[in-house]
């Protein structure tokens, strides 16, 4: 696949360069480690710090979500690869204000190990650290093993809720509790239509026929539940939702946040057509959409497809979802 890049080995460095130049009023790179981006805005004294991160290639995630009301720092890995412990540790030191730091990351072996090591190192330096591992992808393991599931687009809602809680001055254990609750209440299910390719290898992340789609595709091209014929937007929405409904109890009167997330090359037009059906189905079931988000929130380079995420809300989560955000790549009033 064609790429507008220079040396494929430098894409992450150069992206970060461009990013902090474009958003210098929001963020800066750390001198201690140039794979760390932290907010350059004043945050409240004693605010719990939030460090997120993971591989690159998911832009606007994760770096786009450092700003007011979301994360304070991000550790940036190579494309689709967890960052090493060092940038995570440096991010931790940079954002800690004495109230401790929460790590939020997706459930992948590399992220688990690297954030885990960083947490040990941070604690050796006297910084309190909590970890919340996101596992919203219903396609990636059976219901009984939710903790084995991958983290995909639902990560956004966890960042949102935890970011709001920290901004509101919750102590570390409460920010972590809220993040865990959000993860518990969040389910995502995706569909893949076309692959992406890594700049360094040029190899498509998976192979797929011209009239096929992959149900439950992962965010790095991981195979999903099954390969099926391409279907209409409404049928795809119905199928994705059916997996979610089977997995989490949603009754009439329940309220949810909805995210229709594009993987990279799926036009907004198609995302809104899918959202239209999601709204219809939820309405039929008497489930109320409290807030909805449509767009490319967590991508996989130029992958084609999208996912649907539902988060079941209680009063606490509603308040947190409503909280304003001001980040380079996401703003909410």
């Amino acid at each position, binding site marked *: 696949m064609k790429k507008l890049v220079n040396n494929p080995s430098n894409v992450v460095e150069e992206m970060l360069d461009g990013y902090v130049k474009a958003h210098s009023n929001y963020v800066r790179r750390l001198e201690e480690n140039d794979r760390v981006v932290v907010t350059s805005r004043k945050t409240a004294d004693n605010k719990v710090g939030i460090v997120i991160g993971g591989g690159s290639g998911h832009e606007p995630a994760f770096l786009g979500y450092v700003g007011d009301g979301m994360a304070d720092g991000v550790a940036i890995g190579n494309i*689709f690869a967890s960052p090493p412990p060092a940038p995570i540790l440096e991010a931790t030191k940079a954002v800690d204000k004495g109230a401790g730091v929460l790590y939020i990351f997706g459930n992948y072996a590399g992220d688990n190990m*690297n954030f885990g090591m960083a947490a040990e190192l941070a604690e050796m330096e006297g910084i309190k650290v909590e970890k919340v591992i996101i596992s919203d992808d219903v396609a990636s393991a059976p219901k009984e093993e939710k903790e084995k599931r991958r983290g995909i687009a639902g990560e956004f809602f966890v960042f949102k809720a935890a970011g709001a809680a920290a901004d509101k001055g919750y102590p570390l254990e409460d920010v972590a509790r809220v993040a865990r609750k959000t993860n518990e209440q969040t389910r995502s299910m995706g569909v893949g239509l076309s692959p992406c390719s890594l700049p360094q290898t040029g190899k498509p992340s998976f192979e797929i026929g011209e009239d096929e789609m992959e149900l439950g595709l992962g965010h790095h091209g991981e195979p999903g539940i099954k390969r099926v014929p391409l279907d209409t937007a409404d049928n795809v929405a119905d199928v994705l939702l059916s997996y979610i409904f089977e997995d989490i109890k949603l009754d009439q009167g329940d309220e949810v946040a909805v995210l229709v997330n594009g993987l990279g090359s799926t036009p907004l037009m198609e995302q809104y057509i899918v959202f239209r059906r999601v709204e219809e189905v939820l309405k039929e079931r008497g489930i109320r959409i409290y807030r909805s988000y449509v767009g490319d929130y967590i991508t996989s380079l130029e992958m084609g497809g999208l996912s649907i995420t539902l988060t079941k809300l209680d009063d606490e989560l509603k308040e947190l979802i409503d909280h304003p955000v001001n980040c380079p790549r996401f703003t909410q009033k």
Partner: protein
Amino acid sequence: MAIRAMNSLTPNQVRDMFLYVGQKVVENKPFLTKIDSAIGDGDHGIGMSVGFTKAEENLKGKEFSNVNDVFKTVGMSMISSMGGASGVIFGTMFVGGVKKLEVKETLDLQLLAEIFEGALEAIKQRGKAEVRDKTMVDALQPAVYALKESVEKNFSLVEGLRKAEEGAHQGVENTKNYVAKFGRAKSLGERSLGHQDAGATTVWIIFKSMREWVEEGLQDD
């Protein structure tokens, strides 16, 4: 100062040995890329090169007064530069065995066996992989057993390393018969059969290059 088939190494010799090992791993980048492309995402060769290049940066021209620091430097270089699962796993392969080790000024076969045994334990703890899960553990474990057996049999350093190399190689071959349980190849299920694991291959290259260096008394200066 080329000494053929040394039986114990000074800290600076250990440094030079790992400089040679790194060179060999970097040379094998295209080979490792090809292997990881078949069932993974094709970045293993790139990742290991980054790690060993960083190690070279941190080893070269430096004087070491103990063996522990050489291992630590190699491992920390990997952990700090590579990222992903393999950064931690291969970093732990070097850091894990010397973490609780008292300061040593020479490396002989017994110490080598001890260090890699500790590394194997640390890796299993970190990554939760066991033999037959189609990871680098499949190569490292037989290599460690071979080292220990060689110690018992009073083999020379180079003999012990050759046995380890053979064990690792057998481990690589074994991975072809396993279904992946970790990393990206995991999601391929049965489709990963018939392909060797990239990380296991790297372990084999590492032991092979250590044996070569000790045998040839090659040095990097």
